[in-house]
């Protein structure tokens, strides 16, 4: 078969060269895209992920350290609390404290008033007494209220007799704060 081309070589070469350049540029562009998106970017991302992983691991480590410290502190706190409570109990049960209470109860008594009975249940104290006039029981109540040792003071019962004599029962609740203050 006779395939003869009368197109002068310079024309063919010209178009071929332009096409070759375009193809070459496209190939370079494609290669660059491949290098950038196929190699460099994944490597960068891998490094970033590694760094992030290390950072997270470090944070995790510091967090666990913090947690340990927190638990440790919590334990110390609990221990201290327990010690405080034991100290508080120790304080509350001391004779000095009760001496002060009793002294207060006694000194608050106005003239013409007497205490007949005294009961104590946990933090509640019941005072059984009698007085020549009901006003004196009220005075005794006020005197007790003015003392900081009691958080609550109230007349539980009043029994009127002839010749204005009155029997009373006063309920006093011990002030916890005062108890703790006294500890320190």
């Amino acid at each position, binding site marked *: 078969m006779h395939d*003869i081309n009368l197109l002068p070589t310079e024309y063919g070469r010209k178009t071929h060269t332009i096409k070759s350049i375009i193809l070459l540029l496209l190939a370079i562009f494609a290669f660059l895209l491949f290098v950038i998106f196929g190699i460099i970017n994944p490597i960068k991302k891998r490094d970033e992920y590694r760094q992030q992983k290390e950072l997270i691991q470090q944070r995790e480590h510091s967090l666990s350290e913090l947690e340990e410290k927190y638990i440790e502190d919590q334990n110390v706190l609990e221990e201290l609390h327990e010690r405080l409570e034991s100290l508080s109990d120790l304080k509350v049960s001391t004779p000095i404290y009760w001496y002060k209470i009793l002294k207060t109860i006694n000194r608050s008594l106005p003239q013409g008033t007497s205490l007949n009975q005294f009961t104590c249940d946990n933090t509640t104290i019941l005072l059984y007494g009698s007085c020549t006039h009901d006003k004196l029981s009220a005075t005794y109540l006020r005197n007790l209220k003015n003392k900081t040792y009691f958080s609550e003071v109230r007349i539980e019962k009043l029994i009127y007799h002839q010749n204005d004599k009155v029997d009373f029962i006063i309920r006093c609740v011990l002030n916890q704060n005062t108890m703790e203050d006294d500890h320190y």
Partner: protein
Amino acid sequence: MALFSKRLLSIDMGNHSVKIIEAQRKPDFRILKYGIYPAELFTKSSRKYRILKGLGYRTRDSIISFHHHSLLMRTLSLPISRDVSAHELIQEIIREYEIDFKEDFDFGYSLISTHIDFGYIRATTAALAKRINRMYIQKADDLGLRLKSIAVQVCSVQKIVDKYIKPPYILIDIGHSNTTIGVIGTVDIMAKVLDKGVIQIKNDYKDSKQFSKELITTCHNLLDAFYHIYPNEAVTQGIIYGGGSYFLNAKKSFCENKDVSINWHEPQEFRHFIENIPEDMDLNLFINCLGSILKSDVREGEM
């Protein structure tokens, strides 16, 4: 994308009409669009670059072909040389033609065979007046075409005819202003282009007679030359085509001529041998165009 397009235009740039086929070659050869247009359409427009797009052709990659009486076809025997390439040897011979014809030529060639024992190679060469070739290249450039090849029409047609007829055979392409006569041998091609065509036939009866006579004479001369080189080959088949064959009723006039005893065919007879040819495509007119696009010298890399 045009850069990777597998489409190709084949344009037969006639003086009277321009035949165009747009085809895809891969994966299967398929004609996508074709048409025949008056040559004036491509010469008078001020926006030539847009004409093909306007006609609906999508690719710019193209093969053009045309016939001109300045075409010289020779089969050359070249001495094998270590120092000088076949191309340089052919170039040297073309230079001699240029001196003889007082004309610069563009040329192409096809190596036929190598005979190392006898120390020569054979090549079919085609040379065309440079000014004519460059004029057509300029025309193609004006139309915005990307030229892949300038086909020699006789060689293009051979691609189709060889499927139907075994060489040797004779081809006669009667165009508007030029007529090509070629003898296709088993290895060689001999061709001559006359600067006469339909335009002479149209004028008057005398001219028509004269033209027929000249055609027959040229056929005889070519056949004589062929038989001189290949005395054992008998040319018994012939094909007449081209727009002029309708005007001249060439087949009939050649059949009546007892001096040229050849069995004449028309290209329409070959259509069954070519796949995917539109039914209404007149091969008589499109055979050059079709042959060019079926030629195998446009390599994939150039597409």
